[in-house]
C-alpha cells in the first residue's frame, strides 16, 4: 500500500505535468499573436517580442478600422453568419422531427437518402459545376444555400427528439393539433438546448468559412473576413520568398513595415468573437456532441 501511495503521487505529478503542457501549448500561440498585434510595427521588426509587448500601441487596430477591404469582409461575414446559421438550424430541425417519428412512411429509406451523403460525395469540381448551373457563382446565396443541410447535426437533433416524452405530443394530438402545430409549438421549444448547440456550430462554421468566398466569388464586395485574411497571408507567404522590393510592391496599399502587425491584428479580430462566445455555450455543445456520439 505504501508503495502504491508513492506510485500514485508520481502518477499525479505526471498527470498535472501533461495538463500544464497542454495548457501552455494551446494558450501561448494565441497570446503571442495578441502581444504582436499590440506592439508597434517598427519595433516588431527588430524581433524578440514574445510574451509581453515592448512598445504597446493600438496602431494596427486603428489601421484596420480604416481598411475598407477588412471592414467590408467583416460585414459580409456578420451578414452570412446571422442569416445562414438560423436558416440552417430551421431546415435541419424540420428534417429531424419527421425522421424522429417511428411511424413515418419510408423512414428507413429517408434515413439512407440523407446518411449516404456523409460517406460519398461528388467532390469539388462537380460541386462547382452545380453552383454554376444554378447561377450561384459570385452571388451571396453561395454562402447560404449549400450549407443549409448538415447530416451530422441532424442526427444529433433527431437523437434528442427521440428521447422526448411522447405523452405531451399525444395529448396535443387529442386536442386536435396537427403535426405542424406540434412541431413548432411543442417539439421545437423542447429542443432548444440542442438547437443552441448546432446553432453555435453552424454560426462558427459561417464565421470561419473562407473557401466558398475565395473560390466561388470574384467581386471584392463578396469577400468574407477570412478570405481577406487569406489574401493578406498569401502576400506574406510569397513575400518571404521573393525580394524585398517585390514585397513592397505587393503590399503597396498597406505599409510594408506594418503589414506584419496588421496580419496579427486582423487575426485577432477574426478570433475574438469566438473566444468570447464559446465558453458560455460550452456545456451545451459538450452535451450535444455526446448525444450525437451515442447513436452515430
Amino acid at each position: 500500500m505504501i508503495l502504491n501511495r508513492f506510485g500514485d503521487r508520481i502518477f499525479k505529478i505526471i498527470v498535472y505535468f501533461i495538463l500544464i503542457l497542454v495548457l501552455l501549448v494551446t494558450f501561448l500561440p494565441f497570446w503571442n499573436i495578441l502581444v504582436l498585434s499590440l506592439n508597434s510595427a517598427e519595433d516588431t521588426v527588430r524581433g524578440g517580442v514574445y510574451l509581453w509587448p515592448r512598445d504597446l500601441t493600438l496602431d494596427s487596430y486603428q489601421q484596420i478600422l480604416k481598411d475598407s477591404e477588412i471592414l467590408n469582409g467583416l460585414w459580409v461575414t456578420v451578414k452570412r453568419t446571422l442569416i445562414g446559421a438560423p436558416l440552417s438550424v430551421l431546415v435541419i430541425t424540420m428534417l429531424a422531427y419527421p425522421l424522429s417519428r417511428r411511424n413515418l412512411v419510408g423512414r428507413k429509406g429517408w434515413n439512407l437518402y440523407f446518411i449516404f451523403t456523409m460517406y460519398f460525395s461528388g467532390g469539388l469540381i462537380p460541386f462547382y459545376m452545380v453552383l454554376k448551373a444554378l447561377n450561384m457563382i459570385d452571388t451571396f446565396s453561395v454562402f447560404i444555400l449549400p450549407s443549409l443541410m448538415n447530416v451530422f447535426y441532424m442526427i444529433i437533433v433527431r437523437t434528442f427528439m427521440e428521447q422526448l416524452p411522447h405523452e405531451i405530443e399525444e395529448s396535443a394530438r387529442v386536442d386536435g393539433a396537427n403535426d405542424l402545430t406540434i412541431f413548432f409549438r411543442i417539439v421545437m421549444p423542447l429542443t432548444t438546448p440542442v438547437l443552441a448547440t448546432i446553432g453555435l456550430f453552424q454560426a462558427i462554421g459561417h464565421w470561419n468559412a473562407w473557401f466558398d468566398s475565395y473560390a466561388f466569388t470574384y467581386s471584392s464586395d463578396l469577400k468574407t473576413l477570412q478570405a481577406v485574411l487569406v489574401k493578406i497571408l498569401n502576400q506574406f507567404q510569397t513575400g518571404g520568398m521573393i525580394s524585398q522590393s517585390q514585397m513592397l510592391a505587393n503590399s503597396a496599399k498597406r505599409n510594408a513595415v506594418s503589414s506584419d502587425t496588421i496580419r496579427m491584428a486582423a487575426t485577432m479580430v477574426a478570433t475574438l468573437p469566438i473566444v468570447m462566445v464559446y465558453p458560455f455555450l460550452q456545456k451545451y455543445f459538450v452535451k450535444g456532441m455526446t448525444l450525437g456520439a451515442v447513436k452515430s
Partner: protein
Amino acid sequence: MHKVSAIKTVRSNNLISRLKEQKWLFVLMLPAFIATLLFSYGPMFGLYMAFTNYQPGGGSFLYQFFHAEFVGFQWFEYFFTTGDFYRVMRNTLATSLLTLFFGFPAPIILALVLNEARQGFFKRFVQTVSYLPHFISWVIAANIVITLLASDGMLNNILVLLGIVKEPVAFLQNGPLFWWIIALSNMWKEMGFSAIMYLAAIASINPELYEAARVDGASRFKQMWHITLPSMRPTIVILAILAVGGILNAGFEQQYLLQNNTVLEYSEVIDIYAYKYGLQNSMFSYGAAVGMFKSVVAFILVLIVNRISRKVNDQALF
C-alpha cells in the same frame, strides 16, 4: 386469392391514408430534401463529366455537359500514368499517416489525464482552453503556425535558448518537415475537442468497478490501465473506423494555407491537386476524375474497415 388481394388493398389504403395523415411531416422534410438533392446528389450526378471531355464556353452549361465527348476512363488512366500520381499519393498518405499517428492517440491520452485530475477550476480551465483551437478557422491557425515557426518566432527562440539548435531552423521551408508540421498542427487544433467523445465514454463507467479495484489494491495507474482504457474501447473502435475511412482526406485547407513555393513538392495532396487542375487550370473533367478516384477509394475503405470491425469487434458504424 380473394383474401390476398383484399389484404393488399387494405394495406395500400392504409399506406395512402397514412401518407395523407403525415402530409405535414413531408412538407417539413421538403427543404432539406431539396438542398440535399441539389448540393449532395447533384455533384454525384455531375461526376459523369469525369468520363467526358468537358469544354467550357459556347452554349449553356447543361448543353455543354450533355454534349461533351465521351472518353471513358481516359482521364483516370492519364492520372495514373503521369508522374503526378506517385507524388500526390505519397504526400497524401504520408500526411494522413502522420496525422493519424499523432492525432489519434492524443485525445485519448488527454481524456485519460483529464479524468485523473481533481474536479475544479484548473481542470475546467484546461478543458476550455484546449477546445479553443477547434473553433478557429484554418486561416487563423495557419497565421498562428507561421508566426510561431518563423525564423524569429517563439519556437526557434525557445530552441536556441535551450541550446537544442544553434541556428534558427527554417521549419516551413523544409520539404519533408512539412508533413510533420501538418500532422502536429492538426493535433494541436483537434486534440481537445476530440477528447469530448472519450470523456463521455469515461463518464458512463460504473464507479463500483473502481471501488472493487481499490479494494484489491490497484494503483491509480493500474485502475486507468485496466478499467478506464478498456471501457473506452467501443468509442476508440468507432472513431478508428472513421479515421481509416478518411485516410485519403489528408486535408486541403492546412496544406493550401501553409504551403509556399519551396515545399510544393511535398504539400500537394490529392484535394489540392484536383483543385489546381480542375478549377485553377480549368481542366474540369480531369479534376472531376481525380476527385472521383478519391471519393470511391474512401467509400470502399469505409465499407471494408466497417466489415472487418464487425467481424473482429462486433462493432460497426452501419
